[in-house]
């Protein structure tokens, strides 16, 4: 008890929590808790974050699955966003929400294409984006996408110059309604068609570090991880 600095601040909760130390609340109750937390938050929450706030012994992951089922087909749905969960209105009811729509900035073609290239090729360097688009990428385009919190810096590539890479964020997944980057439309087809390969121009002998395939920065595991089968 001496390690507890302020037990007298919340005596009730404290004792509630303690009494439940060895007996987690029923699952239905846990579901209610997850429901309350997801409703209250505009941002997606991880099961870890939720579990931290729940009484001892709760299983937020299981409760989320129950809740998700409960909200299937309802006006709001429990959606997965990467490793996190959120409640979002059903897409077919968007017309009701016209008043909530805030003026969204019109994105330039360069920004949209750059975003798509990063999403499908991540982790992706600026040089790779430029190679695919055939033009240089302006600083402002990348800045805008970072500002929108749709992309962020990934690890540096272990190629000469150690270029930074870009990857998409959970905010990107949330915005475009994707559970994981694997759910990007047509990803499998593109990969099968070889269109996601880093194919060097003929005549260029790909060195061991030429396309970042070296051991210390092998993009494959990342992609496997994110886009895996």
């Amino acid at each position, binding site marked *: 008890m001496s*390690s507890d*600095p*302020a037990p007298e601040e919340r005596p009730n909760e404290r004792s509630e929590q303690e009494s439940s130390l060895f007996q987690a609340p029923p699952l239905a109750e846990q579901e209610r808790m997850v429901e309350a937390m997801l*409703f*209250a*938050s*505009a*941002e997606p929450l991880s099961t870890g974050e939720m579990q931290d706030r729940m009484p001892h012994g709760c299983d937020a992951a299981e409760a989320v699955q129950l809740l998700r089922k409960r909200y299937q087909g309802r006006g709001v749905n429990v959606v997965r966003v990467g490793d996190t969960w*959120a*409640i*979002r*209105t*059903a*897409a077919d009811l*968007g017309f009701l*929400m016209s008043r*909530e*729509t*805030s003026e*969204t900035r019109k*994105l330039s*073609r*360069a920004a*949209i*294409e750059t*975003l*798509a*290239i990063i*999403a*499908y090729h991540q982790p992706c360097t600026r040089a790779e984006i430029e190679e*695919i*688009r*055939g*033009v240089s990428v302006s600083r402002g385009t990348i800045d805008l996408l970072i500002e929108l919190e749709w992309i962020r810096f990934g690890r540096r590539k272990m190629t000469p110059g150690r270029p930074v890479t870009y990857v998409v964020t959970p905010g990107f997944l*949330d*915005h*475009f*309604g*994707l559970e994981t980057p694997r759910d*990007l*439309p*047509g990803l499998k087809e*593109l990969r099968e*068609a*070889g*269109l996601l390969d880093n*194919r060097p*121009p*003929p*005549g260029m002998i790909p060195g061991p570090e030429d396309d970042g395939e070296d051991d210390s920065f092998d993009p494959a595991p990342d992609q496997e991880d994110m886009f895996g089968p």
Partner: protein
Amino acid sequence: MSDTADRQDDDMWETVAERRAAEALIVDVDGFEGPLDLLLTLSRTQKVDLRKISVLKLAEQYLAFVEKARTLRIELAADYLVMAAWLAFLKSRLLLPPDPFEDGPTGEELAAHLAYQLERLQAMREKAAQLMARDRLGRDRFQRGIPEQIDTARTVTYTASLFDLMQAYARLRTRDDFRPFVLDRDSIYTMEEALDRMRGMIGYGGDWVDIASFIPDGWRRDPKKRRSATAATFAASLELVKAGRATLRQSDTFAPIQLRPRLRDEQ
């Protein structure tokens, strides 16, 4: 230049309307996002699967475009011209029989890569459009309008061990012990003290005085103190002589040392 390409070019300039349209295409060169974008646009006139595109025909179209742009004195960015030079090279590679002694990629390989680049760019454009057409947050799907404030109750636990406490106290006490070092001076009479005392006593002019008389009262009995005071007074006397304020004399070895303040005009 093949006949078909020439005829097509002629056709392009047949009517005023078409000519205007073509000019618009050229003048609007800024609207293209680089040579690859232009090539992709041109490839659409072939109306075939990008994988079955005739790169040779495409190269000719591009070169014709650049040529037209030049005759219209339109400034083309350097990369358009670089592409033109490369396509001219590619065209020669595709048209001439392969040189068995020459190294490097064949025309077909180069053409295949260009076709691949176009296909990849086209694919990315389609995906970008599909992405933007998804049910987007803030347009089709919405988050909670009144999110509830999660107040963060931060409990800070301060830690300090008994060891920390002891160390802190030890640090304080040790610092006390190591204040600027001062010797135990109970029985030490310094030259500075002697000087101060003597300066106040001698004034200017006067008779010879035994320097022992300058030793303060409390310093005469205890031998330790007397020794210290005698030495200090002697040293102070020498200082006064050095400063020209006094003269010393001693009649004999171990005789009392006498001091007489110097007169002002003696200096």
